[in-house]
């Protein structure tokens, strides 16, 4: 339990605040949170943070409850477990998931917390974490697929006072930076994160000065309460007392085993929702474990719930007491120390598909297909001709699922504020060329609302080096819903300079590439929503014209086109043939189910080698883990 030091511990009385003042402070906090992003993007150096925005800011109240932000509060976990003091001028840095209750879930995420004081009294927190391109360890990028413990995953920082009452802990910082490959990026990104948190601190103090700390802090209570009330109403209207379950998978662990099962059961008791992960596989021996913080999952759940009803609402922790999250110890989602954690991105992503699948079973307005539920990584590193070290860490992007709201956009990100990296930028700073950057036709699942296409990106390497890949959904499908078909799966093909082609595993390290080799990095599409046989044939034809669907692919919608082989004219619909084909397909198909997973796990395994060019993973064997 952390000890909070206040030179002026008078405390603040709670006062009544009128609704307008509450709204004004709410807006001010929302602006402050975007200011944090702006400061970070402008000043960070690694492309992962600077261009792709792999970062998560929050502003919290005195107790550490998130008032604005998007990934839920990670401060409570820290305050509960930290044995030390919190003082004015302190800046905390940490990256060890095991010593902050999984506030962050792997060592690449560096979390900065700044307590904010007004004249000797604690009035709030600014905090942010960002993904470092490298934190040392056995492989560039620090996400070793073959790690079996966190000791192999680079430098791990337990909660550390980076600044102690305003004094920088220079020696500790240098010790940390000595462990990493891209020291200047880490230093600059860390500076940028600290600056963003300080910006939040400045805004909190300004609000306290403008309205008085009593009014400010009472407003935060009111905002949290407002959120709790809204969520209580939503829960009672939309969640049944009847138990619903949903299961999804991580395809493999990169070590030859898989798929790994994540299973969740949801039901309501009174005004509370229970989300129970009993039935999830035990922790993996490798590094795909996703140590899930319960509060983070509460936040994910809440955001999905309310997005449809009042998207202007400010996200905060107020509704947490309404949600009971149960994660059994020793599972994939709560592994025991010192299990490896680095490659947790697939588990993190898959959690969103599971949420969608659970909420959608009773509520068609919530039911989205499976989407781009991961953030696949590519690492490419080596020494260039001048003897300078280069190291790229890039997040791939795929298709958004088909939704009740409409088609899933092609090649867009499900992650908040994430963007791609301009290819000209990559070519200017790394020894490579991007020869192809387009979405893959037909990879979006057919549906009344089509799933978004995945992307095919072709990297031509201009220097010898080493590549790592972290991807998923190469074996299981991004499922479709309400009659929609699954989206296309991911694949990676290495085309050697001599023309030979090799399918690379979805997760791999230490792949040696030579000058002139090309990597086809193909991500997966989103699942389809609704019956593809009901999609407007003219729209299907237009999408063929746009190169998003092929003439062959159009037949999966039951649409027959008269093709102009030269491609100069827009294709037109053969109405007669289309009506005939649709009738026949509807007949052959029979009734559709809510979910279309593209077949059973056993079936996928049987067809794996033929369809993917890779041998099927073995069923997981679970190792012993430490008792606690």
């Amino acid at each position, binding site marked *: 339990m952390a000890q909070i030091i206040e030179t002026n511990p008078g405390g603040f009385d709670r006062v009544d605040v009128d609704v*307008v003042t509450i709204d004004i402070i709410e807006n001010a906090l929302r*602006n402050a949170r975007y200011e944090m992003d702006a400061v970070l993007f402008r*000043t960070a150096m690694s492309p992962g943070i600077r261009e792709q925005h792999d970062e998560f800011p929050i502003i919290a109240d005195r107790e550490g409850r998130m008032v604005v932000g998007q990934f839920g509060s990670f401060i409570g976990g820290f305050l509960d477990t930290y044995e030390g003091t919190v003082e004015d001028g302190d800046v905390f840095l940490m990256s060890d998931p095991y010593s902050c209750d999984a506030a962050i879930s792997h060592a690449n995420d560096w979390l900065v917390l700044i307590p904010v004081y007004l004249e000797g009294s604690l009035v709030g927190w600014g905090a942010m974490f960002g993904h470092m391109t490298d934190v040392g360890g056995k492989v560039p990028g620090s996400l070793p697929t073959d790690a079996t413990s966190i000791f192999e995953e680079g430098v791990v920082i337990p909660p550390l006072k980076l600044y102690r009452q305003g004094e920088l802990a220079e020696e500790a910082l240098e010790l940390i930076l000595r462990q990493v490959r891209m020291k200047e990026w880490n230093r600059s990104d860390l500076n940028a994160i600290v*600056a963003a948190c300080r910006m939040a601190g400045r805004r909190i103090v300004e609000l306290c000065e403008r309205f008085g700390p009593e009014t400010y802090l009472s407003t935060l209570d009111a905002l949290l309460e407002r959120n709790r009330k809204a969520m209580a109403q939503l829960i009672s209207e939309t969640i049944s007392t009847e138990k619903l379950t949903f299961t999804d998978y991580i395809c493999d662990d990169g070590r030859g085993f898989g798929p790994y099962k994540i299973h969740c059961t949801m039901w309501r008791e009174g005004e509370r929702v229970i989300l129970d992960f009993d039935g999830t596989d035990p922790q993996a021996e490798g590094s795909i474990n996703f140590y899930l913080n319960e509060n983070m999952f509460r936040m994910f759940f809440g955001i999905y719930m309310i997005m449809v009803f009042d*998207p202007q609402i400010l996200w905060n922790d107020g509704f947490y007491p309404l949600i009971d999250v149960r994660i059994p110890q020793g599972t994939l989602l709560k592994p025991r120390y010192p299990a490896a954690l680095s490659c947790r991105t697939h588990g993190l992503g898959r959690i969103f598909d599971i949420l969608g699948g659970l909420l959608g079973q009773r509520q068609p307005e919530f039911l989205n297909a499976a989407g781009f539920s991961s953030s696949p990584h590519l690492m490419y590193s080596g020494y260039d001709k001048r003897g300078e070290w280069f190291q790229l860490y890039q997040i791939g992007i795929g298709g958004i699922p088909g939704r009740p709201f409409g088609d899933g956009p092609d090649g867009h*990100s499900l992650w908040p504020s994430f963007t*791609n990296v301009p290819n000209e930028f990559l*070519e200017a700073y790394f020894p490579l060329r991007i020869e192809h950057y387009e979405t893959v036709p037909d990879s979006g699942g057919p549906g009344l609302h089509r799933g978004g296409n995945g992307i095919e990106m072709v990297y031509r390497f201009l220097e010898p080096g080493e590549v790592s890949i972290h991807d998923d959904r190469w074996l299981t499908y991004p499922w479709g819903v309400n009659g929609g078909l699954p989206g296309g799966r991911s694949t990676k093909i290495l085309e050697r300079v001599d023309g030979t082609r090799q399918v690379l595993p979805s997760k791999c390290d230490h792949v040696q590439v030579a000058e002139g080799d090309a990597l086809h990095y193909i991500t997966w599409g989103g699942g389809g929503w609704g019956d593809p046989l009901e999609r407007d044939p003219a729209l299907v034809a*237009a999408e063929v014209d746009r190169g998003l669907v092929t003439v062959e692919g159009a037949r999966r919608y039951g649409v027959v086109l008269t093709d102009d082989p030269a491609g100069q004219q827009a294709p037109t619909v053969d109405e007669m043939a289309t009506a005939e084909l649709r009738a026949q397909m509807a007949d052959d198909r029979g009734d559709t189910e809510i979910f279309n997973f593209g077949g059973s796990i056993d079936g996928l395994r049987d067809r794996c080698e033929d369809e993917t060019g890779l041998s099927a993973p073995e069923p997981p064997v679970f190792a012993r883990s430490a008792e606690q």
Partner: protein
Amino acid sequence: MTYRLGVDVGGTFTDLLLIDDDTGTTFRAKTPSTPDDPSQGVLAGLEKVTADLDIGPDDLGHVMHGTTVATNAVLEGKGATVGLLVTRGYRQVLHIARSFVPGGLAGWIIWNKPAPLAALEHTVEVDGRIDARGTEITPLDEASVRDALGRLEQRRVEALTISFVNSFADPGHERRAADISRELLGDIPISLSSEILPEIREYERTLTTVANAYVQPRVSHYIGNLSKELTNRGVTAELHILRSDGGLMSTDAATSAPVNMLLSGPAGGVAGALWIARQAGYDNLLTLDMGGTSTDVALVEDGRPRIGRETEVGVLRVRASSIDVRTVGAGGGSVAHVPELTGALRVGPESAGADPGPAAYGRGGEQPTVTDANVVLGYLPPSLLGGEMALDVDAATTAVTTIADAMVVDVKRAAAGIVDIVNENMFGALRLVSVQQGYDPRDFALVAFGGAGPLHANALGRLMGSWPVIIPPSPGVLCAYGDATTRLRNEAARTFIRRFSETSDDQVAGILRELEAEASHAVAADGDRADDDGTTTRFQVDVRYHGQGFELPVEVDLDGLALEQVGAEFDTEHEQLFTFALDAEHEIVNLRAVVLSSESTVQAERIDGGGDDPSAAATGTTSVYVDDRDVDATLYDRAALQAGNRIAGPAIVTEMDSTTLILPGHTGEVDQFGNILIRPDDGAGADHVGAPTMEA
């Protein structure tokens, strides 16, 4: 005797402002706008104003025009059908965009992607490749260009964009493809990305160039027509168009790069505010232009508007210089509502628009708007709107009552809440351009204009601590002032990515000189303005720390240019903006020269002087609700006010196109140009800006 004519085409009215170059005397004309062909409204206004004054067309020395014709093409989706030639492998550059989905976590659930400005079916790939340093990897395959153009010809595209990967480093392939296009497609307008935006980042460069092509046919049609009609009427002065960055450009420049005039309208407002405020002795300003559906704000430091590198219109964001104007969906027509789920009070961004408009307009609108709240609070007196439009107080009260009921408060409290919230939204925008850029708003005066600005300005001055609040005369036609008083501006830029150690002072100075020559060529070719006795050039180096993704412009002097000094200034600016500087190597990204013609010397018109006492202009009293109570406010007729008058709040000053509210505890002073300068009576902030330097 010569006159300069400023012309601003707004959504409802076309404003013309004629200024006598010698005396500064102004003459105004207002004619209804003619959206189908805006030049008709302009010409009607011209006839009216010249007839009124009995002057001939050749008495006009300058005709300067701010126009939203490009803006509207974008907002209404009525631009050209654009064909796009791209490098093989990049057909979906606009479709994939930056892969960004707005709205935070789960925002994708409710977001539908807007269609690209150049449709995918009109985007065709060609072979040929240049690398990031400008080296040719594969020659341009001319046969593939001809094929692609054949397809586009079949599709009847109306404008063509050519945007190849890395063309910022070498424009050769784009230029050759343009030659072939002219040969095959005749006189179709062509926009090259290497000319419109020779900067790194393929999506932003392509989008900006396509936006140029998209508005080009409509803009050139409009400008061509207008020029021709002006000439037909005997006007000999050349027509100039206001750019988004507040400078003027020739009609040739406007028709070849119309992407530079997307924010021509708001730029006119800022330029007008700057001109009038400088006359009054203030050149550190925040400008607030509040209209019916939105509010534009900008910051002016030392008489210079802050120029941003991006222009945003609706959902379109392109890389083109513009005055850093931020727009919020907060205006007189913004609708208030209380979502059942949260019970929060929200105002905007939905607007009641011009039709039916606020409930108070009596045209069938029932939704409670900001204007209705102002009516309920007594800020907009029903009988005193120049007599042009009577306001329906009962309808406004009924509409605001729906909010009061949902909040369980009385109707005036609800109305005050609506006004507070909309003020807070504008406050947020003002902070974006000030506090968030490292400026202390207490160092700035606040100039408010637009139909609704003067009603909310005093309250915003109080929130920002920005004094005085300046309400210029005729706040509704300030844009036309800006058009009439600004100067020619042109810029040339080049991406030149080098760490400081990879280049030299001399090399940088050499390129900047070349850019100056390029930019002044256009200004000289443009400008045969009589008062041009020379141009000035500003040089900018965009700098970042090596490894960063964003750069900051640093102004440099070519005499004795030293990169070391540039680096030091960058460090200072970085620290001011972001709280820290780094011990990392500096890197140049872009070099830029901005050439300006000499400044206008037009003086503002003075009004008659009088004493402290404004009572001669008083027309009565009315009850207003301020700070939770009803108080009596004095009503004044602005036209009757004299220089030196001091108006104690609470007071309401009315004129034809605007109403000014002075709050209790504040006093408005009328200066010699007819501006009302509002300051708090307790002296807070009175001297913060420093004593104004009054011009002789």
